């Protein structure tokens, strides 16, 4: 449920290095909390983001949630498949349900995010 090798945020997003880009999505825990996702609003390609800035919206049947940039950078690609199939976020949050690819302003920012064991600890603390 919390794959190794990825980085995580307290807002329940994950980030994965892909060449000189970083792929971003929401965690299994986040999609489970949201329930069935019916719409994902993603930013325009080329937009630049500050770390922590809201860049999109996930609309689920019961609730809505903002998406936050895990690090500063430029949006270079968004997952177009989510427009027709938002349920991919529920079905494969770490794979086909990815949201955006960012060209980070500073690649080292990734190292400041949580690793899998720290994120697991965060989840456990929330449920203690």
């Amino acid at each position, binding site marked *: 449920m919390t794959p190794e090798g990825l980085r995580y945020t307290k807002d329940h997003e994950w980030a994965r290095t892909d060449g000189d880009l970083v792929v971003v999505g929401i965690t299994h825990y986040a999609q489970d909390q949201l329930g069935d996702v019916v719409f994902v*609003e993603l930013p325009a390609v080329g937009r630049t983001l500050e770390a922590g800035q809201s860049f999109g919206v996930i609309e689920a*049947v019961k609730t*809505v949630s903002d998406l936050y940039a895990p690090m500063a950078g430029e949006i270079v690609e968004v997952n177009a498949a989510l427009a027709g199939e938002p349920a991919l976020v529920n079905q494969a949050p770490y794979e086909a349900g990815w949201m955006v690819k960012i060209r980070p302003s500073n690649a080292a920012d990734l190292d400041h995010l949580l690793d899998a064991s720290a994120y697991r600890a965060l989840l456990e603390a929330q449920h203690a």
Partner: protein
Amino acid sequence: MTTLTTPFLECHKRAGAKLVEFAGFLMPISYAGILAEHRAVRTSAGVFDVSHMGEFEVRGPDAGRFVDHLVTNRVAGAEVGQAVYTPMCLPNGGIVDDLLAYKFEDRIMLVVNAANIAGDWEWAQEVAQGFDVRLENVSDRIAQLAVQGPRAAEIFEGLVPPAALDLGYYRFTGTSLWGVPMVFSRTGYTGEDGFELYFDAAQGERVWEELFQVGRKVGLQPIGLGARDTLRLEMAFCLYGNDIDRTTHPLEASLGWTVKLDKPDFVSKAALLAAKAKGLERRLVGLEIASPRVARQGWEVLAGGAVVGRVSSGTASPSLGRSIALAYVPAGGAANGTEYMVRSGSVELPARVVPRPFYTQASHR
């Protein structure tokens, strides 16, 4: 306050439910997922644990006269075996609750919303002053399951007398299932055909197990509160606490058909007559939102840039694939096709008044 549970808590856990606290009860919000559960009810059948709802029994020589005084619809004149949907109002017309009144030979049973049990009980006792009636709150002793969907009746074939499956909508009968006596009622909150079963809470788990055994043939699924909400909203059925409450009255909530202003006298009659004479200020309407975003409870309704109303419920309609909402708008702007904007913070979406129900393919109206 400690969290209450229904007799089915262990059944929910075994079925993999995600549990939340609702109206003081630990209840299943979903099992397989809201969309899958919604689809099951629209295409086959599903079971809802609605045991959190309250039941009051009214007995005595004045039972009919009292209930007709307490609520806005006509109950005393209903036939034995008939269930009547009705608001219950304050003297100023504000809605205390909406409920089902079941007319039995010897009593009337009022089925009320879980969140309102205490308030309703207090109010009913107050109104009962001067009537020769005995009121009993039997909420804790009664389990309630709703079996809903176009294939709901199939489940009970051969298990109940044919007459029970020939019941009209909003009719009920006493019967027994797996040796458990129950009220078998052709009612529901989904727009689909189906039944609501009321029985001894102590028999809860057994009935649940038996029901899913026989329900296998139609792929019966457990359904949580999440899909209960999307199903009722597609039918534009009011939800107490969202679309109606003590600050709204039944006429503006488009529940005029449940208000019998020609009844001799009832609590709220004068206020509702006056409201009608004066003309309504606002009206609950159905909105279709021209966006995949959902306008939820509390969003503002705008006309010409000014706030003129408020969204009371909203969801992404699973059956229609559209964003729908119920909202109060000015009574003069309630006609189908009237255009508004709905807003929350910086998000502003176009909306249009559409006919209710939103979903017109349900197996019952």
